């Protein structure tokens, strides 16, 4: 078991797991955002690797990918950001969120060498389904890396059981069909779905896809162990994209995003480290 997961995620509830795209708009900002998110109570960070063809993502994260790719971000460069975050005080687990093709091109050996060298804690591959994940699961176990699995409302009971049985880190519940992105409300079926997952899961259950308002967090809080927030934060980054790249305004821009995040996770009543 990965020690950071043990300390920050295992047996915990009210988990706040934000997603940020590595290198959006440039690498320095990604480091600062990760630190800010930890200060606001994040239990783990999903570090998204930009990809030309992000099949599971909506337009907001696609645009973030495009911004990051313009600046030459890659899986390897993103993993090299992690020690820089650690140097500045990041203690929570970092999960590499990458599409399978990028992982295949880097190669399994090279990837795990970087995991060890850079202190990476988890891996999430949205387009690597359970049936194809065996080999990666084994390597992750060997390297004390959590392999995060996703389950969707359409996942059958039988499949859910198989996925839950082997889940490590936490189980990622996709709140609705479709792609990542913000939504105005959750269908009531989400709650029954999450309850169904909770019954099967031995690891914390977090809900993602569409979490963007404090009301969402409040609604979900009693049903699951935490939330994953991606597009909503990326949208904030997008609105500050100029200011984030200017050294004079960067801090202010980060604080704007901080204010949004603080408001969003307020229902968790987290003790935040105010900077």
């Amino acid at each position: 078991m990965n020690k950071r997961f043990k300390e920050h995620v295992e047996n915990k509830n009210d988990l706040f797991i934000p997603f940020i795209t590595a290198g959006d708009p440039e690498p320095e900002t990604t480091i600062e955002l990760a630190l800010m998110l930890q200060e606001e109570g994040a239990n783990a960070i999903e570090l998204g690797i930009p990809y030309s063809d992000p099949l599971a993502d909506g337009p907001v994260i696609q645009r973030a990918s495009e911004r990051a790719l313009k600046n030459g971000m890659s899986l390897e460069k993103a993993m090299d950001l992690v020690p820089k975050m650690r140097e500045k005080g990041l203690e929570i687990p970092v999960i590499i969120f990458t599409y399978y093709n990028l992982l295949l091109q880097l190669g399994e050996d090279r990837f795990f060498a970087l995991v060890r060298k850079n202190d990476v804690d988890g891996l999430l591959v949205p387009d690597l389904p359970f049936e194809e994940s065996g080999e990666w699961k084994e390597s992750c176990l060997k390297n004390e890396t959590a392999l995060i699995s996703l389950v969707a409302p359409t996942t059958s009971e039988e499949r859910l059981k198989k996925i839950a049985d082997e889940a490590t880190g936490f189980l990622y519940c996709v709140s609705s069909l479709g792609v990542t992105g913000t939504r105005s409300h959750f269908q009531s079926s989400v709650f029954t779905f999450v309850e169904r997952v909770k019954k099967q899961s031995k690891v914390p259950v977090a809900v993602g896809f569409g979490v963007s308002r404090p009301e969402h967090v409040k609604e979900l809080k009693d049903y699951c162990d935490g939330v994953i927030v991606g597009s909503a934060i990326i949208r904030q980054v997008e609105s500050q994209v100029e200011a984030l790249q200017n050294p004079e305004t960067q801090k202010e821009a980060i604080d704007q995003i901080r204010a949004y995040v603080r408001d969003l996770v307020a229902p968790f009543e987290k003790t935040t480290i105010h900077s």
Partner: protein
Amino acid sequence: MSTIVPDQRGRYGQFGGKFVPETVMYALEELEGSLNEAMSSKEFIEHYHEELKKYSGRPTPITHAENLSKRLGGAQIYLKREDLNHTGAHKLNNAIGQALLAVRMCKQKIVAETGAGQHGVAAATVAARYGLECKVFMGEEDIRRQELNVFRMKLLGAEVVPVSSGSKTLKDATNEAIRYWVSNVEDTFYLIGSVVGPHPYPKMVRDFQRVIGDESRVQLEKTPDKIIACVGGGSNAMGMFYPYLEEQVDLIGVEASGKGIHTGKHAATLSEGRLGVIHGSITYLLQNETGQIQEPYSISAGLDYPGIGPEHAYLSETGRVTYKGITDQEALDALKILSEEEGIIPAIESAHALAEAIKQAPELTASQEILVCLSGRGDKDVHTIMEHLGGDVDE
């Protein structure tokens, strides 16, 4: 060599499979179940063949290109006339099959991706025929380039949805169609246009296109010495080759070398691509060193796909099919020759296959035969042809 069927996981050797988000898995399982059920239903298969015959005009003939063969002074060239299908290309064979399956699955809507618009037109056509709502995702860049096909789709009652993500072309339209499908899977069927995508799509499209090869086997007195077809995603080639895999015949797929492999402007996926994942399937694809998918180039919009059907990747690896490259210029030359010699203006895609036949024919004797899959007609390309031949075809 035994006929290849993808295994349980949808693999053709190391290629194929289902590399899709969890949200798509259910949709693929549902599709696979319905497909297997339909393909074993006599009634469904008969209906499909009935539609091919009475709506699309099949069987398409095989034309002996006598003048061309004489001019080249080698093998006899035969053309499988997919250009004579309704809507002008082989695309409709597959669109009819999938649309009938959609109806059988009680889906009221279909979505499709399109590059140049040929598959979009085929999808819009079958949607009109079978009373389905149709959305066609098309890159903004392609919409600009293919005004006429956009109009055709609208005339047929389809909605054309512009795609502004990524490079705004076919691969992005495919991503967007998959995204839409996943969000609306209850009432929506994704009608894919080639032997690509996650399992069972490559198999399904192959099985709806194999009518090309099945008919050819009946129509020709003997098995030809060579069969040549162009390959973008590879549906006409797969449909032509599949029934011949166990025969004694050279099978040759032709990719687009564009402006020449050395220029970097090409769609030569098998010769220049690396193993990876595109649209849910493991295959060869054009990508940069870190794995970002790259835009292919070809004068022919139907061939500029950055991946290739997984079964082609497999047939290339096993050596059963040989894959060659033909440049824009070679294809245009072949198009001009066929127009002059036989009175047939082929699609620029099909002209790639023809150009390879023109290269190889002189090496054979007059008693040998080459069968070329003439996958589509050139009417849609007249603008492009004019631009490249400068409007002056007499020179």
